């Protein structure tokens, strides 16, 4: 009688079997990542970022694909996604508004600001607007405490927030305008 060793997660899976594929551009970036990092497993975090930057989140098929390519079990990939707050495994709202509620921003008025946002958006912290446009989240310290209250949206940090500024930002987003470039700051030469 034959006896199969439990395969757990270590079965190699062909790319088209998972139904997940990288674009040619991303594939080149992925190869570069793997070449740069000393072990396959250490390439996991930049790979997950590559996937999330492209898709807005990390789909299940991508988890299987990444586990296979980087020779770890799916459980280990999911550990990372569950541990690091920035990785998301479900589709996200167009604008995820992460408002810092840690101590310095709190002192400078984060709480009323969040209340204002809740009112403007008609949702509570932790929720997404029905049209999928805005999600409102509280965030821990974003490392811009002297410029608070702060809000992180994608890669962009909004500082020195007031209810008026919030309104302007939301309107701009609703109009589909791109987020401000961070080099657009009033700086001395």
């Amino acid at each position, binding site marked *: 009688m034959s006896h199969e060793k439990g395969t757990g997660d270590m079965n190699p899976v062909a790319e088209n079997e998972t139904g997940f594929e990288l674009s040619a551009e991303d594939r080149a970036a992925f190869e570069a990542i793997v070449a740069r990092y000393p072990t396959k497993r250490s390439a996991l*975090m930049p790979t997950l970022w590559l996937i999330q930057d492209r898709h807005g989140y990390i789909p299940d098929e991508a988890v299987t694909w990444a586990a296979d390519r980087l020779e770890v079990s799916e459980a280990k990939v999911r550990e990372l996604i569950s541990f690091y707050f920035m990785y998301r495994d479900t589709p996200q709202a167009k604008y995820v508004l992460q408002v810092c509620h840690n*101590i310095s921003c709190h002192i400078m008025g984060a709480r009323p600001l969040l209340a204002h946002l809740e009112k403007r958006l008609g949702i509570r912290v932790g929720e997404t607007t029905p049209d999928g446009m805005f999600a409102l989240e509280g965030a821990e310290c974003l*490392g811009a405490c002297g410029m608070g209250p702060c809000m992180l949206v994608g*890669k962009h940090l909004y500082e020195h927030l007031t209810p008026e500024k919030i309104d302007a930002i939301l309107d701009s987003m609703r109009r589909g305008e791109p987020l401000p470039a961070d080099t657009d700051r009033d700086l001395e030469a």
Partner: protein
Amino acid sequence: MNRDDYRILSKRFGTRDGHKLPVYEAQGGYGALRRALGESDPATVTETVKASGLRGRGGAGFPAGVKWGFVPKDAETVYFMVNADESEPGTFKDRFLLDYDPHAVIEGAAISSYAVNACLCVIYIRGEFGWLVDRVQTAVDEAYAAGYLGRDILGSGYGLDMIVHKGAGAYICGEETGLINSVTGRKGQPLIKPPFPAVSGFLGKPTIVNNVETVAAVPWILNEGAQAWIDLGTEKSTGTKLFSVSGPVRNPGVHEIPMGLAFRDFFNDWLGGMAEGEELKAVIMGGSSVPVLTAEEAMNTRLDYESLQEAGTMLGSGGMIVIPARCDMVELIQVLMHFYWDESCGQCTPCREGTGWLHRIVRKLRRGEGTLEDIDLLGRVCEGMAGLTICPLADAAVMPMESFLQRFRPEFEALVHEGRPERPDSRWAREIRS
């Protein structure tokens, strides 16, 4: 005191183009690297940094040159890592350095890597820095293109690769072994010691992790000499320190000061005192993970490692949080306990359970449902956490908690006696993903 004398690390802060390579080079950038590789050797570089008394600027304050000396001399593969995971509440100096002066960080990291004979340097940047991560990557690309990184740098025979590694949202990755573990593609959970990273760290090889500010100081120290750095501070706290200041003062932001400066002077002259209508109540000096000081205690101390330790707190990361009189201290400690509960990696029991427990008890008090026993329980829980864990996150939660209890106990008791029910706080607190 001419404040411009102390614009060493902050020289390019607030400038539009300081982050660009040509500007950096024009101001003498990469000269220290050139000389270190061309005219010096790793041991000499280490000795210089050791002599300067430069202490780790991430929070631990361990002498950098001494740490570098722990690497076994015959090690074949060594790694260097720059801790740019800045997540300590109240701290944002590394953001400024990476924003306005990434090349100083890169040059400092390269020199430091050379000093320990590292072949690979990883700059671990927290993911929330967003666009800033791209800026640092661009700067690294510039450095490669100019020959300051890669194989046979400036014809010296020394080669160094530099990776910008983007974090993904975990305060615990700021702990050096958590950082190392994260780079290996695992959760950023700290590693038990022994082994110590300088002997066995990343992939089992000697690994040195230094803070952004620490490495940023290295080029200047090599250019001007160890003594020049020593002259800027006190005997045990040499050089300058970047203080990140937040709270309702007139001039918040990142200020570079000579170590040893009296807080009173810093507060009045540099920060301009409290903003209109605000009154000073308390100060957290070094990022939220250190004991809080009352206004009076703060006014009587100096800003350096020893003085702050004597005052019953720590310099830590230099993340100064100024707390005004209008603030409810129990509300603030709830904010902090929420933070540590959020960020505990969950590995070891006293921290995992204790941070959650502290948060629950404080929340209960704020809802007006607490008792005097609950206040005592807070102290007991702290005792069951401090000094008993793998890494200092438990202590980081305990220090503010115990100090708030010790200095502001009447505010806690008032909640019990007056039974003031507060608005439930989950409305504004981040929902934890399940």
